[in-house]
């Protein structure tokens, strides 16, 4: 489940980068098209070709740098997104209050969100397998809300956050052990980049 989300994010980030690349590459292809009326100025053609070649290589260099910068930016965003998505917040059984540890983690997420204004997040509330499906939706909704409230208090605009409950339907760990249960009583994040 989480992997799918990750892949989706990575691919959407890649798309973003691709779109950006396509835009940047525009000037590079233009001179090539203008090369067509070159027959009119035969004398200067050699020199022109030379400067043209220089310009081309410059443009290519520029494009390469741009691509690299984009790649670096993409990698940085991806790392940030991964970091946010790995910051699961855990809860006690049938509780939705944030533990001290949860607050520390959320403060880190809050920092990242303050820095990256383009990020919007979906907060997913989850429960362990015990209890009914219905009540666990309610509980998951409460947990997601507590996280949202904390981040709002940290200075993140409500318009950048959405909360949703998955109840007990999307467990992270399988099994009927306290270990699995404690892994599943959580809130986690999905990150989107505002266009």
């Amino acid at each position, binding site marked *: 489940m989480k992997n799918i989300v990750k892949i989706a994010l990575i691919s959407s980030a890649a798309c973003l980068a691709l779109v950006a690349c396509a835009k940047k590459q525009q000037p590079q292809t233009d001179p090539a098209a203008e090369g067509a009326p070159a027959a009119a100025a035969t004398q200067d053609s050699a020199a022109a070709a030379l400067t043209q070649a220089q310009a081309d290589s410059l443009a290519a260099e520029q494009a390469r740098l741009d691509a690299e910068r984009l790649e670096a930016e993409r990698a940085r965003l991806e790392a940030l997104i991964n970091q946010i998505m790995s910051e699961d917040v855990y809860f006690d059984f049938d509780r939705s209050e944030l533990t001290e540890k949860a607050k520390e983690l959320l403060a880190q997420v809050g920092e990242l969100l303050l820095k990256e204004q383009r990020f919007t997040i979906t907060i997913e509330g989850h429960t362990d397998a015990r*209890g*009914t*499906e219905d009540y666990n*939706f*309610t509980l998951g909704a409460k947990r997601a809300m507590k996280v949202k409230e904390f981040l709002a208090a940290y200075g993140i605009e409500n318009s950048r956050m959405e*909360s*949703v409950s998955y109840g007990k*339907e999307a467990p992270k760990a399988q099994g009927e052990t306290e270990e699995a249960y404690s892994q599943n009583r959580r809130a986690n994040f999905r990150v989107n980049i505002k266009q």
Partner: protein
Amino acid sequence: MRICRMIATKRFLTGMFFALLVLLPVQTLASIDTIAVDVGISVFKTTPIGIVPFEESAGIDWIEERPHQILTRDANLSGRFDVVASDKFNLALFSRAKAKHYMTGKVQPTNDGKLAVECYLYVSQSKTLLLGERYTVPQKELRRAMHAFFDKVIYQLWGERGVASTRIAYVSRIDGVKQVVVSDYDGFHRTQITRDSTISMMPVWTKGNKGLVYVNFKTNRPRLYTKNFGRSEKPLFQQFDQTYSPAVNPVTGELLFSSSKDGKTDLYVGDMETGKARKFAYLKSNQTSPAWSPYATEVLFTSDRGGGPQIFVMGKDGSDLRRVTFMGRYNERASWSPEGDRIAYTSMDNGKMNIYTCALDGSDIVQLTNNAGNNEHPTWSPDGKLIAFASNRSGTYQIYIMRKDGSNVTRITQAGENTAPTWSWFYDENKPQPKEGSK
């Protein structure tokens, strides 16, 4: 006192139940049998009834159970009869066993490959015919024909409607994804209703058994959808963010449901045709798992106002709110008996879920399941005699039927993982089985 005694008896008997299970070979569909669990206090007055194998002409290639086997299963499941089985009519046996009536019949193949079945209900002593029905059906529809006859027998002898022709909707994990399916009440004739790559769950029946309402996650959040059988799916109440816990009003067909917004869960009621909905009750607590009373005058629901979930009841206009459950810290998902006098619900203790019933004022609590895995999601048969539920007592979640006193636990699903059963309404209005001479 009463509860303690129940538990003691049940614990011993569930032990026996497991011993029996271990002894049983790998179960096939034809080998599902009711495991009699006597709970000590039975609220049932069962009537002995004789069942004699049908007279059978040669040349029938049986792939389904025989007619008398289907009737025997119906009788065992019904919670109304004790079956007195006999190879042939045996007045001495029927008389000793107080079986005042018996069922039997005739079955023969027709020229076009169907079965012509004659079904009879007789008075044992006088051999007076009380009821006779004739069905001509393909063999794969024999079960439904026998269910139809059996419901006629119940009506003849009890003056009440039986549930042999009803169905159950539940959730089945298919290729790793929860899907909504429907089967006959005995687990046969399963049909898959949803075919999504995202989770479907919480199916309930719309009025007249025309279709289902259920939850799906295709928009990355729980949302209600409806689908009439054989038709396409329709999203419901899209003005709401997250919607779940559907409950169909048995009188008007309106839908009562939960919606969560910004961490707060409230009940709403709306018309599925127009899509209009309004808040059902203005309460500070979160509310979920609504259930209508049989005549839709009151509503049961769960509130977390005390911290954990507890069951409450209020009038359909939101008036006269009272708390029903007080024992234990986790009582959830109540369902109102069609007879009106009791509720069934799930309670969690030490992380284990079990099914209880109690009176509407919360008194007279009876624990129906114990010491056999988790048992949850009770749903009443429309005649109020039986409760279907999901249990993982066998290791995986499966659907079971028991009598309303917890006796006669019968497993009706065999493979995979099956949860969240909801019993249909009566099927009276629906087309009867084709009879001889009709098309």
